[in-house]
């Protein structure tokens, strides 16, 4: 089985994000970058599925600047087999929009012909939650978004590193996190699956694997070579800081709290 996993380089969610004074974008100087956390979950799932169905291959694809090779390399160090970087130099408001990313990924997938594509449900920079669904429609494939595991992340199944997605008879069976509960879908392969937080706990790269990853191949492609027009369909015009909340008031005890909720906030 061939599994393709998309990995986006994003600002570290632990960094302090500030808006630029000219409101054109956020301040990126001094902000660390890393792989989108959802994509790490997708990589982990791909590795578990591969190891359960050898011989199989896990290919990592990222679209972005040359620096995104770092995130591909991290996924290779987790255990993936090889990488593809679609190099695109626009940054800030000129970054790829999800639609352009989906169309680039479509071309890569048409070349690679994987059986399964695993992606994050959402990139924690643009928080769009659209790329996987766009890609599925462009390819004419089925999709299962927000893939989860029915068992908790502290369960025996997770400790045994079992995949949460079941591959059986040319289909993927997936539990999805939806409003009001969990839904089970069966989707014919090849398919797009986007992953949610509760699918697995990603592994750390071991030192020997980090060394091995240095020798794994990363192919480079470009939008021109793939014949994709990267003009954005959604353009960021400006960004601003969110409205600040004037919090901070402390109350000494429960009686004061209830009295304030009743007379000041008038919510009880």
């Amino acid at each position, binding site marked *: 089985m061939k599994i393709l996993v998309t990995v986006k380089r994003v600002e570290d969610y632990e960094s302090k994000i500030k808006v630029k004074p000219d409101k054109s974008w956020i301040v990126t100087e001094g902000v660390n970058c890393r792989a989108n956390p959802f994509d790490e979950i997708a990589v982990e799932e791909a590795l578990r599925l591969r190891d359960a169905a050898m011989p199989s291959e896990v290919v990592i694809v990222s679209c972005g600047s040359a620096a995104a090779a770092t995130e591909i390399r991290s996924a290779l160090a987790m255990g993936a087999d090889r990488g593809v970087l679609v190099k695109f130099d626009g940054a800030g408001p000129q970054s790829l929009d999800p639609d352009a990313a989906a169309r680039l990924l479509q071309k890569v997938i048409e070349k690679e012909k994987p059986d399964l594509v695993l992606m994050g449900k959402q990139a924690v920079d643009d928080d769009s939650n659209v790329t996987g669904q766009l890609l599925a*429609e462009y390819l004419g494939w089925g999709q299962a978004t927000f893939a989860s595991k029915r068992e908790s*992340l502290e369960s025996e199944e997770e400790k045994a590193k079992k995949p949460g997605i079941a591959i059986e008879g040319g289909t993927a069976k997936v539990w999805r996190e939806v409003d009001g509960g969990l839904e089970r879908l069966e989707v014919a392969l090849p398919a797009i699956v986007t992953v949610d937080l509760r699918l697995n706990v990603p592994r750390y790269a071991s030192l020997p694997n980090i060394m091995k990853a240095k020798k794994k191949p990363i192919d480079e492609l470009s939008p021109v070579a793939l014949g994709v027009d990267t003009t954005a369909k959604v353009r960021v015009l400006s960004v601003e800081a969110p409205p600040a909340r004037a919090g901070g008031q402390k109350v000494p005890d429960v009686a004061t709290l209830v009295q304030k909720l009743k007379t000041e906030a008038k919510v009880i």
Partner: protein
Amino acid sequence: MANSILLIAEAHEGKLKKATLSALAAAREIAVRTSGNVVGLIAGHGIDGAAKELAAHGVRVLAADSAAFAHVLAETYGQLAAEAAKKTEATYVVAAATSIGKDVMPRVAARLGAGVASDVIGLSGEGATVHFRRAMWAGNAIATVEVTTPVKCVTVRATEFAAASAATGGSVEAFSFTPSAAKTKFVEFVPVKSARPELTEARAVVSGGRGTKGDFTLIEQLADELGAAVGASRAVVDAGWQPNDLQVGQTGKVVAPQLYIAIGISGAIQHLAGMKGSKTIVAINKDADAPIFQVADYGLVADLFKVVPELIAEIHKAKV
């Protein structure tokens, strides 16, 4: 029928979802600014009641009532909505950013060659030029975005638009469309059953974090005393202490109740992204430096196991 704003409505157990009325509010605002008309699309099996409910809001409703739409599959719903958008010459397609809206809308956009602005929290721009405001980086920045394609797809965050009110002039007509066979099959749905109000619609929400050590008895008792919904942080849901459906935050549900009480929750930015819009925020945490206190209107530094029982008793007294 040119220049319509197609609203993808959602029915649940035969009734119109409340989030759809918030999406309708956004659709109406776009219609006023672009001199268009809102057309509703509702699909499912046995959706007559929900279709009429939507029509009672002054909307011309297209109802696709068919066994083919009994379960929402992004593939078939995407085809249906794109077809309805073409038939009504829609310039905007709008839906609520629910798990269904998020699943389906990008597929509609891809079929229409449209850009999609997701989880929109407000409209801006001048006159017929409509721009969208949306949160990025876990709510650390609010972006104003432009959709550059002739048809524009939008999902809206229901908590940011007050539900549209009833209006006259609505109608329901059957819309028949047979989608090509789906590569996806619905297997089963395991609902989270709760007698409490729905998280995103509740007037008050009581949320518990890792500080509860997994025991939600006090959280539930307090919620019941207030008639509130129960929420949780990611830590709680990851541990399997509470169902996924209760996670509040950047990647869970976004809530904006009159009253939000965070108990044993540290206040990570990803959690704040889901509740910062609440009118009054109360935090109970034993760590005086917990970041949750920076957004709380009223903070109580205390052991939750000691003060929550007192709080339940005091609120009970305050009510009578």
